[in-house]
């Protein structure tokens, strides 16, 4: 009888252990920091300390037919841009004050008038893959990130400022760049 009591202890330990180990960790939790987006804040070029909204902003990537979701003609003072993980540069078209007039001919696109000012920015970087966990696999971090604004003679972007201090972009908790306009 004494031995029966002895055996109860390992049984309890086993049950506890098995129930702990059975929790699922094959789903990547949202709270885990995975591949970051590039975060750009829009600031006022006349008053560099205050953020400034851009109106009717449309953002889409070069070679991408879709408009970046969340930027389908919106008013915003921050851009959250996903970068290509399989390339060393990503180009975005930032279209400010977007307007669209189909001249009452919805079927004929040749006489459509698209208003506003579009600037093309190219983000250059180096990538490195960092292991996160079995559920999330690897994430890409971006090193030596630079933004160049293509000069089209009528840029609404006046200047950019790099806040990364040449540190790699490993997460998207903080702003990485300012755009002054």
């Amino acid at each position, binding site marked *: 009888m004494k031995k029966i009591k002895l055996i109860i202890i390992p049984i309890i330990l086993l049950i506890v252990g098995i129930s702990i180990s059975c929790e699922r960790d094959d789903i990547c939790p*949202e709270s885990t920091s995975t591949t970051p*987006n590039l975060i750009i804040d829009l600031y006022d070029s006349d008053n560099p300390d205050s953020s400034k909204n851009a109106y009717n902003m449309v953002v889409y990537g070069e070679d991408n037919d879709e408009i970046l979701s969340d930027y389908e003609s919106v008013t915003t003072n921050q851009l959250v841009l996903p970068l290509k993980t399989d390339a060393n540069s990503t180009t975005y078209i930032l279209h400010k004050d977007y307007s669209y007039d189909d001249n009452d001919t919805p079927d004929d696109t040749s006489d459509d008038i698209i208003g506003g000012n579009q600037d093309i920015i190219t983000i250059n970087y180096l990538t490195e893959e960092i292991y996160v966990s079995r559920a999330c696999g*690897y994430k890409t971090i971006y090193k030596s990130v630079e933004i160049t604004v293509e000069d089209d003679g009528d840029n609404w972007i006046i200047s950019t400022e790099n806040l990364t201090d040449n540190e790699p972009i490993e997460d998207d908790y903080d702003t990485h760049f300012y755009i002054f306009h």
Partner: protein
Amino acid sequence: MTMTRIFTFFISTMILFCVSVNAQNDSIPKAVNDSLVIKQKYGLRIAGDIGKLARSFLDDEYTGFEIAADFRLKKDLYIAGELGFEEKSTVNDYLDINTTGSYLKAGIDLNMYDNWLDMDNMIYAGFRVGASTFSHDLNSFTVYHTNQYWEPQYSSDEVQEFSGLTAFWGELILGMKVELFNNLYMGLNVQLKTLVTEKEPDNFQNVFIPGFGKTYDSSSIGTSYSYTLAYRIPLYKKAK
């Protein structure tokens, strides 16, 4: 027709009766020994893990085998050990990993079952220390990105090898061994393990450790089970 059947039945019954009478005669000890001394067998018991063998055939992602041995030191105390190898694939949307390695475990088993007469069954608890050496092949991976605006994400098909890895753990075992035929045993046990140390690969993780099993991100606990078939090489007998 009916007569033939009755005759056949009669003959068969007779034969059966004779056989059973003979059998009964055999089982009666010729010399009646009145002493209550019951001798128990001591020896080396060697087991193969038929559970792992079956899983190797049934599970495409697993290959493994284990040889276990125990030696009876005292009436209820055994020293025991296991030696095995395992190969396991871990595949999800973002990772494709193949782990191979071998392991060694050593410790004691304590029988908690009071056997009746000369029966030799066990319900036991045991403790082991385990060591494993292994390597991972990362066959491919795809970068995880919550935003799928740019598709596809970077993926690598270049096999990366993480080798020379080791792990040590402690283990609690609970199981039973039943004597099916003379000296032939069937065993079943479950194991609860706690990882003590492991050599982690650079920019990667030990998702599976041979002998220890699947690891968990949130704890250092592992579990597994064994289903064994064993033969005891009887060396000597000792009074109970």
